[in-house]
Protein backbone atom coordinates (compact mmCIF):
# COMPACT_ATOMS: atom_id res chain seq x y z
CA UNK A 1 0.00 0.00 0.00
CA UNK A 2 2.39 2.63 -1.29
CA UNK A 3 -0.50 5.07 -1.47
CA UNK A 4 -1.02 5.15 2.31
CA UNK A 5 1.64 7.83 2.67
CA UNK A 6 0.30 11.37 2.69
CA UNK A 7 2.64 14.06 1.37
CA UNK A 8 1.93 17.76 0.85
CA UNK A 9 2.06 17.23 -2.90
CA UNK A 10 0.05 14.06 -3.00
CA UNK A 11 -2.21 13.80 0.04
CA UNK A 12 -3.65 10.38 0.76
CA UNK A 13 -7.01 9.94 -0.97
CA UNK A 14 -8.47 7.83 1.86
CA UNK A 15 -7.65 10.49 4.43
CA UNK A 16 -9.24 13.11 2.19
CA UNK A 17 -12.38 10.99 1.72
CA UNK A 18 -12.66 10.56 5.50
CA UNK A 19 -12.30 14.31 6.02
CA UNK A 20 -14.93 14.83 3.30
CA UNK A 21 -17.30 12.44 5.06
CA UNK A 22 -17.08 14.40 8.32
CA UNK A 23 -17.37 17.77 6.58
CA UNK A 24 -20.27 16.58 4.43
CA UNK A 25 -22.07 15.38 7.54
CA UNK A 26 -21.60 18.76 9.21
CA UNK A 27 -22.71 20.53 6.04
CA UNK A 28 -25.90 18.51 5.68
CA UNK A 29 -26.71 18.71 9.35
CA UNK A 30 -26.27 22.48 9.68
CA UNK A 31 -26.60 23.97 6.20
CA UNK A 32 -23.04 25.28 6.14
CA UNK A 33 -20.20 24.56 3.74
CA UNK A 34 -18.04 22.47 6.00
CA UNK A 35 -14.85 24.38 5.20
CA UNK A 36 -14.54 25.17 8.90
CA UNK A 37 -13.47 21.60 9.61
CA UNK A 38 -12.15 20.61 6.18
CA UNK A 39 -9.42 23.22 5.89
CA UNK A 40 -7.75 22.67 9.30
CA UNK A 41 -8.17 18.88 8.93
CA UNK A 42 -6.42 18.90 5.55
CA UNK A 43 -3.58 20.96 6.99
CA UNK A 44 -3.19 18.86 10.15
CA UNK A 45 -4.01 15.34 8.93
CA UNK A 46 -3.02 15.40 5.27
CA UNK A 47 -0.14 17.85 5.57
CA UNK A 48 -1.47 20.18 2.89
CA UNK A 49 -0.54 23.87 2.61
CA UNK A 50 -3.22 26.23 3.90
CA UNK A 51 -4.00 27.85 0.58
CA UNK A 52 -4.20 24.58 -1.32
CA UNK A 53 -6.45 23.19 1.42
CA UNK A 54 -8.82 26.18 1.09
CA UNK A 55 -8.97 25.80 -2.68
CA UNK A 56 -9.66 22.06 -2.48
CA UNK A 57 -12.26 22.58 0.23
CA UNK A 58 -14.16 25.16 -1.85
CA UNK A 59 -14.28 22.88 -4.89
CA UNK A 60 -15.63 19.94 -2.90
CA UNK A 61 -18.29 22.15 -1.30
CA UNK A 62 -20.00 22.44 -4.71
CA UNK A 63 -21.19 18.77 -4.84
CA UNK A 64 -21.58 18.58 -1.04
CA UNK A 65 -23.91 21.60 -0.87
CA UNK A 66 -25.72 20.46 -4.02
CA UNK A 67 -26.61 17.10 -2.46
CA UNK A 68 -27.81 18.81 0.71
CA UNK A 69 -29.85 21.35 -1.24
CA UNK A 70 -31.57 18.57 -3.21
CA UNK A 71 -32.45 16.61 -0.05
CA UNK A 72 -33.77 19.74 1.69
CA UNK A 73 -35.57 20.76 -1.52
CA UNK A 74 -37.40 17.44 -1.67
CA UNK A 75 -38.57 18.05 1.90
CA UNK A 76 -39.88 21.47 0.83
CA UNK A 77 -37.20 23.14 2.96
CA UNK A 78 -35.61 25.47 0.41
CA UNK A 79 -36.95 28.99 -0.19
CA UNK A 80 -35.99 29.55 -3.84
CA UNK A 81 -36.82 33.27 -4.19
CA UNK A 82 -34.99 33.98 -0.93
CA UNK A 83 -31.97 32.04 -2.20
CA UNK A 84 -31.92 34.19 -5.36
CA UNK A 85 -31.97 37.45 -3.39
CA UNK A 86 -29.30 36.19 -0.97
CA UNK A 87 -27.03 35.22 -3.88
CA UNK A 88 -27.26 38.75 -5.33
CA UNK A 89 -26.47 40.29 -1.95
CA UNK A 90 -23.56 37.97 -1.22
CA UNK A 91 -21.91 38.50 -4.62
CA UNK A 92 -21.74 42.24 -3.83
CA UNK A 93 -20.76 41.53 -0.22
CA UNK A 94 -17.76 39.39 -1.12
CA UNK A 95 -16.35 42.24 -3.25
CA UNK A 96 -16.87 44.70 -0.38
CA UNK A 97 -15.26 42.30 2.11
CA UNK A 98 -12.23 41.71 -0.11
CA UNK A 99 -11.71 45.48 -0.38
CA UNK A 100 -12.09 46.10 3.36
CA UNK A 101 -9.76 43.26 4.33
CA UNK A 102 -6.62 45.33 3.95
CA UNK A 103 -7.95 48.19 6.10
CA UNK A 104 -9.18 46.51 9.27
CA UNK A 105 -6.93 45.04 11.95
CA UNK A 106 -7.51 41.31 11.78
CA UNK A 107 -7.41 40.39 15.48
CA UNK A 108 -9.82 43.02 16.78
CA UNK A 109 -12.29 42.21 14.04
CA UNK A 110 -12.16 38.51 14.82
CA UNK A 111 -12.60 38.94 18.56
CA UNK A 112 -15.46 41.40 18.08
CA UNK A 113 -17.12 39.03 15.68
CA UNK A 114 -16.71 36.03 17.97
CA UNK A 115 -18.48 37.95 20.75
CA UNK A 116 -21.26 38.86 18.31
CA UNK A 117 -21.63 35.17 17.38
CA UNK A 118 -21.91 34.20 21.05
CA UNK A 119 -24.75 36.73 21.40
CA UNK A 120 -26.51 35.25 18.36
CA UNK A 121 -26.08 31.72 19.72
CA UNK A 122 -27.59 32.72 23.08
CA UNK A 123 -30.53 34.38 21.33
CA UNK A 124 -31.15 31.19 19.36
CA UNK A 125 -30.99 29.13 22.53
CA UNK A 126 -33.58 31.16 24.43
CA UNK A 127 -35.97 32.03 21.57
Amino acid sequence: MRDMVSTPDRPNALILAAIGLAAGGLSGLFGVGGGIIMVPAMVLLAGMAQQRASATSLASIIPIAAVGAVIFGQADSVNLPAAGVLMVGSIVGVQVGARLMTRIGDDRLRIGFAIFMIAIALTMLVS
Partner: protein
Amino acid sequence: MTAPEILALLAIGLTAGAFAGLLGIGGGVLMVPAMVLITGFDQHVAQGTSLLVIIPAAAVGSFTHHRHGRLTLRDAAALAIGGVLGALLGSMTALSLDEELLRRLFAILLLLIAARMLMTRSPKAEPAEPARPAA
Protein backbone atom coordinates in the same frame (compact mmCIF):
# COMPACT_ATOMS: atom_id res chain seq x y z
CA MET B 1 -41.91 37.92 -0.68
CA THR B 2 -42.68 41.38 0.63
CA ALA B 3 -40.45 44.39 -0.11
CA PRO B 4 -39.07 44.58 3.47
CA GLU B 5 -38.27 40.87 3.28
CA ILE B 6 -36.37 41.33 0.01
CA LEU B 7 -34.41 44.23 1.50
CA ALA B 8 -33.63 42.22 4.63
CA LEU B 9 -32.38 39.26 2.55
CA LEU B 10 -30.25 41.54 0.37
CA ALA B 11 -28.69 43.00 3.52
CA ILE B 12 -28.14 39.53 4.99
CA GLY B 13 -26.44 38.30 1.81
CA LEU B 14 -24.30 41.42 1.61
CA THR B 15 -23.20 41.22 5.25
CA ALA B 16 -22.59 37.47 5.15
CA GLY B 17 -20.56 37.79 1.94
CA ALA B 18 -18.49 40.66 3.31
CA PHE B 19 -17.70 38.95 6.61
CA ALA B 20 -16.98 35.64 4.89
CA GLY B 21 -14.31 37.44 2.88
CA LEU B 22 -12.98 39.34 5.89
CA LEU B 23 -12.78 36.47 8.35
CA GLY B 24 -12.24 33.53 6.06
CA ILE B 25 -15.29 31.76 7.43
CA GLY B 26 -18.20 30.46 5.45
CA GLY B 27 -21.27 32.48 4.61
CA GLY B 28 -23.62 29.73 5.79
CA VAL B 29 -22.65 30.14 9.43
CA LEU B 30 -23.88 33.75 9.20
CA MET B 31 -26.82 33.37 6.82
CA VAL B 32 -28.61 30.61 8.70
CA PRO B 33 -29.04 32.47 12.04
CA ALA B 34 -29.87 35.70 10.17
CA MET B 35 -32.67 33.98 8.24
CA VAL B 36 -34.01 32.49 11.46
CA LEU B 37 -33.78 35.60 13.64
CA ILE B 38 -34.44 38.40 11.11
CA THR B 39 -36.73 36.99 8.42
CA GLY B 40 -38.27 34.40 10.73
CA PHE B 41 -37.56 31.34 8.59
CA ASP B 42 -37.97 27.87 10.03
CA GLN B 43 -34.53 26.40 10.96
CA HIS B 44 -34.85 23.69 8.29
CA VAL B 45 -35.75 26.18 5.52
CA ALA B 46 -32.92 28.49 6.58
CA GLN B 47 -30.42 25.62 6.32
CA GLY B 48 -31.74 24.30 2.99
CA THR B 49 -31.73 27.80 1.49
CA SER B 50 -28.20 28.43 2.77
CA LEU B 51 -26.95 25.26 1.07
CA LEU B 52 -28.29 26.48 -2.27
CA VAL B 53 -26.75 29.96 -1.87
CA ILE B 54 -23.34 28.45 -1.05
CA ILE B 55 -23.06 26.64 -4.41
CA PRO B 56 -22.39 29.60 -6.77
CA ALA B 57 -20.10 31.23 -4.19
CA ALA B 58 -18.00 28.06 -3.94
CA ALA B 59 -18.01 27.68 -7.73
CA VAL B 60 -16.69 31.22 -8.30
CA GLY B 61 -14.09 30.83 -5.55
CA SER B 62 -12.78 27.49 -6.75
CA PHE B 63 -12.66 28.69 -10.36
CA THR B 64 -10.38 31.53 -9.25
CA HIS B 65 -8.18 29.10 -7.30
CA HIS B 66 -8.09 26.75 -10.27
CA ARG B 67 -6.87 29.54 -12.57
CA HIS B 68 -4.07 30.25 -10.13
CA GLY B 69 -3.10 26.59 -10.13
CA ARG B 70 -3.91 26.03 -6.45
CA LEU B 71 -6.44 23.30 -7.04
CA THR B 72 -5.79 19.62 -7.68
CA LEU B 73 -8.93 18.00 -9.02
CA ARG B 74 -7.85 14.56 -7.76
CA ASP B 75 -7.84 15.85 -4.18
CA ALA B 76 -11.17 17.64 -4.59
CA ALA B 77 -12.69 14.46 -6.02
CA ALA B 78 -11.44 12.38 -3.08
CA LEU B 79 -12.95 14.88 -0.63
CA ALA B 80 -16.19 15.02 -2.60
CA ILE B 81 -16.65 11.23 -2.60
CA GLY B 82 -16.69 11.16 1.19
CA GLY B 83 -18.42 14.53 1.29
CA VAL B 84 -21.43 13.55 -0.79
CA LEU B 85 -22.05 10.51 1.40
CA GLY B 86 -21.71 12.64 4.52
CA ALA B 87 -24.04 15.28 3.07
CA LEU B 88 -26.70 12.64 2.40
CA LEU B 89 -26.49 11.31 5.96
CA GLY B 90 -26.26 14.77 7.52
CA SER B 91 -29.17 16.33 5.67
CA MET B 92 -31.45 13.33 6.26
CA THR B 93 -30.56 13.49 9.94
CA ALA B 94 -31.27 17.24 10.05
CA LEU B 95 -34.67 16.76 8.41
CA SER B 96 -35.59 14.05 10.90
CA LEU B 97 -34.87 16.37 13.84
CA ASP B 98 -37.40 18.62 15.48
CA GLU B 99 -36.90 22.25 14.38
CA GLU B 100 -36.33 23.56 17.90
CA LEU B 101 -33.73 20.88 18.66
CA LEU B 102 -31.96 21.61 15.38
CA ARG B 103 -31.90 25.33 16.20
CA ARG B 104 -30.33 24.62 19.58
CA LEU B 105 -27.71 22.32 18.06
CA PHE B 106 -26.90 25.05 15.54
CA ALA B 107 -26.46 27.52 18.41
CA ILE B 108 -23.95 25.13 20.00
CA LEU B 109 -22.06 24.95 16.69
CA LEU B 110 -21.89 28.77 16.70
CA LEU B 111 -20.51 28.77 20.24
CA LEU B 112 -17.80 26.28 19.25
CA ILE B 113 -16.82 28.34 16.20
CA ALA B 114 -16.73 31.52 18.33
CA ALA B 115 -14.53 29.77 20.91
CA ARG B 116 -12.14 28.68 18.19
CA MET B 117 -12.03 32.20 16.77
CA LEU B 118 -11.19 33.58 20.21
CA MET B 119 -8.42 31.04 20.78
CA THR B 120 -6.56 31.36 17.48
CA ARG B 121 -4.36 34.41 17.18
CA SER B 122 -3.50 35.08 13.57
CA PRO B 123 0.07 36.22 12.90
CA LYS B 124 0.10 39.92 12.08
CA ALA B 125 1.73 39.76 8.69
CA GLU B 126 0.29 37.28 6.24
CA PRO B 127 0.41 39.18 2.97
CA ALA B 128 1.05 36.15 0.78
CA GLU B 129 -2.14 34.44 1.83
CA PRO B 130 -5.30 36.54 2.14
CA ALA B 131 -8.24 34.88 3.90
CA ARG B 132 -10.65 33.26 1.51
CA PRO B 133 -14.26 32.53 2.24
CA ALA B 134 -14.63 28.87 3.08
CA ALA B 135 -18.31 28.99 2.08
